[in-house]
């Protein structure tokens, strides 16, 4: 049992923080949000040089063999800095899925490209008719057909909430290739060139101001060689991608959450009303302690989930717990901060809380929110086994508890023993 980071991870954390403090100040975050691309290509190149894009790939593809924990450390710092970039889409949802399910040639092509900063990927999963609540993440919500024709597949339909589609080189697209049997058994993943004829990408206006898109496919032709994983076998790698991505979002929420706690407590100590810092009020202290408790718990469950993924241990329970908790705890944490900041937390010109708060919406919802991941927790509970104690029954408790409360004796020295 060990909650600490290794010294290398600690160093990665410190360096990432220093880098992002310099390269990603508040005005940069605001500037990128105003634009359409959601990232700065020069900065993407810089982090490629730092190894942040290829780190979790094996060395033969330009990586360092880093673990999920290492990536989570990075995402925590990126969450704290509100770093706008297609890292989650490209490296985690794209790259690690290709690493798991790709052919040797696909791995060589895509992973090396990602590591060099030459390729951006976007995951296209959700669809307009099927994005309601937790059902958005069920296999039957994937209906976009991919129909075989010659040596290719034709895709027609619409994907929604596709992060970073407008800047992507490739869309990792979840399609339906069979309607028979279990819905999870008819899903196929394709790597679709984003500039293929027939693709129309439109930016959505979201709470977070991030660059999610509607992507319309009109008879888009994809070569069979761009299938990722086996035909009809796309669900398993997609779910793993969802788990990994969900843990990265949790890590972002941990980083953002700790920053929000820090600024909220600082404000409570310095903002004066009625001749005293507002932090003297127990109601204000209550908001701060609730914030601290929500965010503290996020760290524990996220670390555990990241560790289990890193160790390739079964992790369905731990990942579900982490994202279910973080999604809702972080929402409550932001609310607590808003209570304390009041007016200063709502205006958009100064102050950083609205930025964190709006971004929390994506972090809460993307790749599954509380209600969704609790359905996955419940599935784990379906498999729990209960072990009764197996000593011989003594019949001591049934009678004892239901007796009338007796007139218990008063005890004096005569009644008590000595040692």
């Amino acid at each position, binding site marked *: *049992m*060990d*909650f*600490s*980071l290794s010294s290398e*991870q600690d160093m990665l954390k410190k360096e990432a923080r220093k880098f992002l403090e310099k390269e990603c100040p508040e005005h940069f975050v605001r500037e990128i949000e105003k634009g359409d691309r959601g990232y700065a290509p020069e900065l993407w190149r810089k982090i490629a040089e730092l190894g942040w894009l290829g780190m979790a790939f094996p060395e033969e593809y330009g990586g360092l063999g880093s673990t999920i924990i290492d990536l989570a450390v990075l995402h925590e710092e990126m969450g704290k800095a509100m770093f706008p970039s297609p890292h989650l889409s490209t490296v985690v949802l794209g790259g690690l899925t290709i690493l798991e399910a790709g052919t040797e040639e696909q791995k060589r092509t895509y992973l090396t490209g990602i590591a060099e900063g030459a390729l951006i990927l976007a995951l296209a999963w959700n669809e307009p008719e099927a994005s309601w609540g937790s059902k958005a993440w069920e296999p039957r919500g994937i209906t976009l057909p991919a129909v075989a024709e010659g040596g290719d597949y034709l895709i027609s339909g619409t994907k929604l909430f596709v992060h970073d589609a407008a800047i992507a080189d490739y869309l990792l697209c979840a399609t339906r290739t069979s309607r028979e049997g279990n819905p999870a058994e008819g899903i196929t993943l394709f790597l679709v060139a984003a500039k293929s004829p027939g693709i129309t990408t439109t930016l959505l206006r979201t709470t977070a101001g991030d660059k999610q898109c509607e992507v319309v496919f009109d008879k888009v032709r994809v070569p069979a060689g761009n299938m990722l994983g086996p035909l009809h076998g796309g669900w398993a790698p997609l779910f793993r991608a969802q788990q990994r991505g969900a843990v990265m979002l949790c890590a972002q929420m941990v980083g953002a959450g700790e920053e929000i706690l820090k600024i909220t407590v600082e404000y409570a100590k310095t903002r004066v009303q009625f001749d005293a*810092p507002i*932090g*003297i009020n*127990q109601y*204000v*202290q*209550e908001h*701060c*302690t609730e914030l*601290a*408790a929500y965010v503290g*718990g996020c760290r*524990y*469950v996220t670390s*555990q989930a990241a*560790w*289990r993924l890193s160790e390739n241990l079964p992790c369905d*329970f*731990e990942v579900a717990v982490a994202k279910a*908790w973080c999604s809702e705890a972080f929402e409550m944490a932001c609310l607590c901060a808003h209570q304390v900041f009041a007016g200063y937390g709502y205006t958009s010109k100064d102050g950083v809380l609205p930025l964190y708060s709006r971004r929390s919406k994506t972090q809460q919802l993307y790749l599954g929110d509380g209600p969704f991941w*609790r*359905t996955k*927790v*419940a599935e*784990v*509970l*379906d498999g*729990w086994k*209960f*072990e009764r*104690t*197996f*000593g*011989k*029954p003594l*019949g001591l*408790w*049934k009678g*004892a*508890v*239901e*007796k009338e*409360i007796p007139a*218990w*004796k*008063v*005890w*004096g*020295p*005569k009644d*008590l*023993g*000595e*040692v």
Partner: protein
Amino acid sequence: MDFGFTAEQKKLREKIHEFFMTELPEDYEPGTENMGEEVQAFFLALKDKAVQRGFYVPGWPKEYGGSGFSEIDQGILDEEMGYAGVVWPDFLGLHLVGPTLMMIGTDEQKRRFIPPIARGETICFEAFTEPEAGSDEANVQLKAVDDGNSFVLSGQKVFISGFFKPNWLFTLARTAQTVPKHRGLSLFLIPADLPGITFRPLPTMGGGRQNEIYFDEVRVSKEYLLGQLNRGFYHAMQVFEFERRMTGAASRGRRQLEELVDFCKKTLYDGEPLMADPQIRDNLARLAVACELQRLAGWYSTWLFAERGKAALMPAYDLSNYYAKKWAAPQAQTMADTVGLYAQLGVASKYAPLAGRLDRMWKFTRSMHAGGTFEVIKIVLAQRGLGLPRIPAPIMKEIGEAIKKDGKAA
């Protein structure tokens, strides 16, 4: 980072787990506040077995009967005991009196008092609370007047838990009247059967026994003074900070949940198991998430303690206590909601699900103030953990007096 256990730790856990699973009868009911003579006898016998097996005080120094358990090992033991639903009759001796003696006892006191605790021969009561001294511990009024070779104690304690008859009383008394109130208190460990001590029963909502303790000119030999005269308040605060292992509380909740889940799978409504109901699934999942958080929070405290020792343990950031006190009642309520009307039935009713445990659990969660109210935990987190400002004691006193005078703060 490692959320697993070593092979030795796993083996240890298996050994302890097997002990409790085997020794506890099939019809064991954990958390029963009302304990008849036979139930008490059962726990005392189980305790003797644990003493024999070395599971009683394994974390204590070897010279006091310990067997070299690390903090993590101790956390595993606590976790398995919580899972089994066992609380030792003398848990106050184990977790409060023993550690206090080790910290501030004289050599003679250690030699005399620690071995009987380790052998399971003691039942210690913690007698701190008084009618006017609850959260405000420093307001203790129990007088201890210096009379040469002894102190003479007069006064009263209240809400002192304990079904088992005690043989030792661990208490805080006022040995100096003229100084700031927290600087005039001293700790005592006294035999419970001294002439002049009376225990009057206070039945609790859950059917348990608490006590009023009356001290009528009780002559206490000075050998029973613990630590320094008039430093008792500080000694007590220090000891409370050590007793932070919460792995047991979390696992108790986990076991209750496992049993409830099992119940929902087996219980049918209109031919379908309760477990098929989406609302129940979401409730149970919420409970499972909370359980896992509590488990990890308990282990975080335990690990921090193991890693950096007592001095570095920041009591303010112990979220395990925070979660436990905050969620105990909502969790009991959610569990009760799962069975609805049946939650009001106690164990003797043939209709009571889970042996009436949900009724007991609900009642018990009306007593989460024990060992420190949730409000105090929040205040400590806010002021010591986060550094938020506090009203200094003299100003609080002024405010209190102004309110008494004309019903409002100055």
